[in-house]
């Protein structure tokens, strides 16, 4: 292949972590740069949208898009990239399932705007002005301010996504595996997750074999209540570790730091709603027969069920967020 494969990177509603993750490849970044021709990388390189528009369709081999779709601009750009690229990769939890910003879907758009632009103590905005396109008199041009979408959407609700790379952010080896797969061309069927394990975290978790025969817990525990025994499966000790329902591939980093998995690698192929599946297995092993006791434990020990079980996946869940009254 005479020319090097072109790749594009773009970030939408994201914390920038995924951008950095590419750098986390450390020296491998160099191999990457040699191997590919980066045509669009707003955070690092000053390409403009117009440059991408000029490219012929499908000329970009792969676009790695991270972050959830929050603004009309995100929508515009990712549609453009879709048109221009052969493969679109939803890189990281936000673009794959909406990520932590996706939890905003628990609130209406006005609530978010009013919170951000009116109620926040550091803001003084008596006229209750909201950012919107306006005509800048001095520059004589119209300054376009993108609209906020009613809901944050995962990438595949806006454009067709070829592959997903899990993680918040994706760990270096996952990123590298993904890139290898892309470059080598032997890719799994469209729509699958690449770079990570096909099994749940427990499969690679060192504490897996420390599990008792009957994994039943009498009570959920909060991480603050006790320091778990690092040598024993955290779930077996009562911590609501989401390892069993989360895809492996991260090498159980959090578990190694004695912290329960929060599910950033998302659900396995056979699961269609991460939160529901997590709730199902956690409730099943809670060995309690009385309804009131279950309610008490949920209130006291898990408190924010949606936040905890849909931390990275709320927008991709079946309801996609809170259902508001008419």
């Amino acid at each position, binding site marked *: 292949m005479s020319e090097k494969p072109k790749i594009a990177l773009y970030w939408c509603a994201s914390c920038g972590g995924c951008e950095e993750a590419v750098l986390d490849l450390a020296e491998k970044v160099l191999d990457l740069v040699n191997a590919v021709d980066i045509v669009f990388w707003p955070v690092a390189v000053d390409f403009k949208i117009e440059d991408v528009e000029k490219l012929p369709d499908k000329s970009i081999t792969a676009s790695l898009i991270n972050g959830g779709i929050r603004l009309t601009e995100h929508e515009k750009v990712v549609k453009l990239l879709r048109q221009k690229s052969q493969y679109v990769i939803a890189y990281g939890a936000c673009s794959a399932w909406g990520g932590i910003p996706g939890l905003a879907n628990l609130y209406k758009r006005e609530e978010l705007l009013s919170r951000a632009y009116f109620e926040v103590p550091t803001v003084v905005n008596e006229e209750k002005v909201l950012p919107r396109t306006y005509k800048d008199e001095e520059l004589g041009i119209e300054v376009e301010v993108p609209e906020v979408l009613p809901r944050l959407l995962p990438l595949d609700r806006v454009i067709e996504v070829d592959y997903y790379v899990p993680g918040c952010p994706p760990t270096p080896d996952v990123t590298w595996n993904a890139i290898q797969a892309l470059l080598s061309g032997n890719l799994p069927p469209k729509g699958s997750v690449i770079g990570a394990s*096909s*099994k*749940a*975290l*427990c*499969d690679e978790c060192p504490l*897996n*074999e420390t*599990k008792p*025969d*009957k*994994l*039943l817990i009498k009570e959920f525990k909060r991480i603050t209540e006790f320091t778990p025994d690092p040598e024993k499966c955290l779930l077996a000790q009562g911590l609501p570790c989401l*390892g*069993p*329902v989360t895809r*492996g591939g991260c090498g159980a980093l959090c578990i190694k730091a004695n912290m329960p998995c929060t599910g950033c690698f998302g659900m*396995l*192929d*056979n*699961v*269609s709603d991460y939160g529901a*599946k*997590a709730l*199902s*297995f956690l409730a*099943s*092993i809670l060995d309690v027969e009385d309804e009131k006791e279950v309610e008490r434990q949920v209130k006291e020990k898990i408190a924010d069920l949606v936040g905890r079980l849909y931390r990275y996946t709320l927008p991709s869940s079946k309801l996609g967020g809170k259902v508001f009254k008419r």
Partner: protein
Amino acid sequence: MSEEIRIGVYVCHCGLNIAGVVNVKEVVEYAKTLPNVVVAKDYVFMCSAPGQAMIKEDIKEHKLNRVVVAACSPAMHEPTFRGVLGDAGLNPYLFEMANIREHCSWVHPDDKEAATEKAKELVRMAVAKARLLEPLEKIKSAVRPAVLVIGGGVAGLRATLDLVERGFDVYLVEKRSVLGGNAVKLGELAYTTLTGKDVVNSLVEKIKANPKAHIFLNSEVEKVDGSIGDFRVTVTRRLGEGKEEKIELNVGAIIVAIGYDPYEPAIGEYGYKTTDKVVTLFQLMDILSEEGPTKGELLIGGIRPKSLAFILCVGSLSTTPNAKPYCSRMCCSASLKTILKIKEKYPDIDVYVFYKDMRTYGKEEDLYWKAIENEVKFIRFDEAPSVKPRDKFVEVEAFDTTIQERIAIPVDAVVLANGMVPATDTEKIRIMLKIGCGADGFLKEAHLKLRPVEALTDGIFLAGVATGPKNIIESIASGSAAAAKAATIVTKEEIEVEPLIARVNEDMCSGCGICAALCPYEAITIEVKEDGKRISKVNSMLCKGCGTCAAACPSGAMQQSGFKDNQVMAQVVATFRGE
């Protein structure tokens, strides 16, 4: 599974039961519009031979590989239609039923359009699931040629004798220290000089003479594991002075013959236990039997009564607040039989019978006729009679509805014809064997009319009064019937078990162990493979197919055959839109 899905849909009229409310033709036309449906027909009785023949022909002619029948409840005819598919050479589990009778036409008679609309959607749901059904093979399990009989009453004894004579080992477990249950207390029986004890003895003798019979007295069943063909039973036998031994048994079928308890009237109910002149029918029979406390002499409250009042329906037909709503079936005849025996021995005694409804059914009517001829005086009541103990006699008063007058009769003694209530340990046995009980508290048979001696759980049979009041002859007959059903199992080497069990996709299983923790039958174990990986494994013999593990499996690796996630999801989606 690349083969093209060709579904046949058959909508049943069930005479007028469905066609009377649901527009069957409309449902058939609608079914034709559903994807993969290649043939859709209706017939007046799908379950009948012509109906079944129609399906068989269509399977051959149209090369159908899925069949959907919209008719009655699967509880009625799923086995029948699975048989039809089997006969036509199609895997019986590529079949789904839509219940448009019990769940549709019979319950929405006033809203024909809504019922038809609902029937269409139920068909759509069944077709959606049928599309995703996979062939399943019945699981074969070896059968232990032995039977456990719980309860040594006449029903249990009869079942035991039949089965040992048939050549099978029978373990008879009896809670008390003596065999015979309630029958021994019945004294002389109707139309014969035989007593309850004679009947029991004749059975016990033959049983004891047969080496195949193993009797465990003072024993109770503690734990039952396994399933039809291979039950592992733990029995504890009390050896006296607090010592007891555990016995492990392995049987192919279980017959529950735990009998009943006589209804115990509340203190003061009809004067019971507030005066020694009031006894229950069972106590009277005991008094009359030679081994009884009075060596057969009719003495109640220390005197030989010159006049006796029997009150029937004690504890039945909700006559008193403490009473049961059902009819205990045998007390009318048992009371009249006892009265006739008393009249034979003491002709001069005056007998009065307070009854609500005289239920001497069948040939036992002649007991009623003979009682009338023996000048027994019958008083019919609606509200329960009142029993007022006086100094030298007891006054029984009631409003006689045949003459619309209150009648008071001074008698020397009152006999309460008490009915039958479920045996005290019914609850314990029920939970241990995981079988249900009806609203009346007796064990629930699989089908009241056509499977009266079978429990819903395969391999477990119910004999005698355990399922409801019966007289001693009916109880003995049901003992033999239960034995026959047990024989249909233990005569076979192998038993086929429903294949709706859980299966693991080893490529997805992370060995998280959640499923193993949930299985009540210990059918799932986590095995460590050579590469050190932990993978879940299902023992198809033990798995009963409840699906609880599948619902909890965090990675969706565990699926229940016949109820896989995608199959149920397809039904959910099909409830709202057809594509």
